[in-house]
């Protein structure tokens, strides 16, 4: 009951903030040219869908994000396995991968533009670079954390190293690798939308940049709301998927 009350308070707080925003614009205290009122933004949603092709933009952003995560997984999971398998490699390179994960990689986009041009290649490459370190680090963490008892069971059944990896280590590490893929997906989405916006090419990010340049503010605010909703959707869906994997 208390949880329901707090959730209701949260929703009412957001509704109150939107009502204050509407009131400030209607009362002339806030210019609609700086922040169009929520009612106008909601009214612009059909135009965002029909005229601006927001669904196609969403599909393009999703496509680039999933391509980036797929490439990062193809490189990151073997890299994580190598860091787990070779102690010397872990000592030499794990700190580098962690440093890359913490570095402001998105700032490298002018260099990627030079290499790949103003194309989807730049966007996917930037997303891949952002998603790779968490996937590699979490793969290593998951494989390192395989319970000794499980490995002993594998040995007692005389499994080959390959069978040991596929039948014991990989399933045991799946939840942690899933967490890495989730982080990779979020990092990739942030970078993909950011680069789309900065180079004005591609899906949702480019749509916001274009609408801003055309000064179509209500539609631009609606598109920003769309990005926020998609980020939240990604976050919640991947969180549930991870919980399901952990239960499994």
């Amino acid at each position: 009951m208390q949880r329901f009350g707090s959730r209701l308070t949260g929703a009412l707080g957001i509704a109150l903030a939107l009502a204050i925003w509407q009131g400030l614009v209607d009362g002339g205290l806030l210019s609609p040219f700086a922040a169009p009122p929520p009612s106008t933004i909601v009214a612009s949603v059909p135009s965002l869908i029909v005229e601006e092709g927001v669904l196609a933009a969403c599909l393009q952003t999703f496509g680039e994000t999933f391509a980036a995560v797929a490439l990062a997984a193809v490189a990151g999971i073997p890299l994580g396995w190598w860091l787990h398998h070779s102690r010397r490699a872990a000592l030499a390179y794990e700190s580098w991968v962690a440093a890359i994960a913490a570095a402001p990689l998105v700032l490298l986009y002018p260099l990627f533009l030079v290499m790949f041009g103003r194309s989807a290649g730049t966007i996917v490459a930037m997303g891949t670079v952002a998603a790779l370190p968490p996937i590699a680090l979490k793969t290593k963490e998951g494989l390192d954390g395989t319970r000794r008892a499980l490995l002993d069971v594998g040995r007692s059944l005389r499994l080959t190293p390959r069978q040991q990896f596929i039948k014991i280590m990989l399933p045991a590490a799946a939840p942690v690798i899933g967490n890495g893929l989730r982080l990779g997906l979020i990092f990739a989405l942030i970078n993909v939308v950011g680069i789309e916006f900065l180079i004005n090419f591609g899906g949702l990010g480019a749509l916001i940049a274009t609408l801003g340049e055309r000064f179509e503010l209500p539609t631009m605010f609606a598109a920003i709301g769309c990005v926020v909703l998609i980020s939240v959707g990604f976050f919640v869906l991947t969180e549930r998927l991870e919980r399901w994997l952990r239960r499994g």
Partner: protein
Amino acid sequence: MVAPRLTRRLTPALALQIATLLCLWALWEGAAQSGLVWRGAVPSSVAVLRALGAMLASRAFYRDLGVTLGEVAAAVAIGGASGLVAGLVLGINRFLGRAFEPYLHYLAPTPKIVFLPVIMLLVGVGAGSKVALGALSGFFPMALSVAVGVREVNPVLLRVGRSFNLGPAQMLGKIYLPALTPTIIVGLRLSLGLALVGCLLAELNLSNAGLGFLAMQAYNQLDIPTTYAVLLVIFALAALANAVLGRLAHRSPAGRVRR
């Protein structure tokens, strides 16, 4: 005497790191000299070092460096302070925490750069928009770190505070803030990293001063060695700030206890 000390320090892992760096450098230089890759995209390391030297010797660079450092400092101050207040409120008051913390969690991974057009409409295209985007980026890690940290404060400390009849301000100053020092430093570290990215992305997008402007100006003039040089400086600054805050976290009283 020197040789054994060197051998002791040159571990296999370090040797591997040095060998990898040399290989990468040789590959880079090979690509730059071979003509197989466009030299504009992969300039020789000598050209990058020359551009770095010329940039460090020019007065304009320090003006731009000062602009960026000022913007980042203001962004961290605004975003960090507001994040600290929000985190304390949401952490101490469980009801408000349950009501509003999920929204912070949901908004934290949203790409903040998409808010730049809105920020520019509200505060203009000058340094204010860079500071605002940096502050927005730096707010979430601090707020979330502190909100989680407050709930992990040792309950014994809270009971001691209550048994001494401390008022809310005294509880905050004498119990919560000292106990939260390492959490605040971690939050500050994350906040600084994201504020730096926020400010520089805003500069790269539209500006007439700062390191982002310098990088974009060099890129637009196809002066790629200087673009690399500016990015090297930016990454070195980010690493330096991270290392300083990391050391500070390690030296904090709670950090020493953990060790």
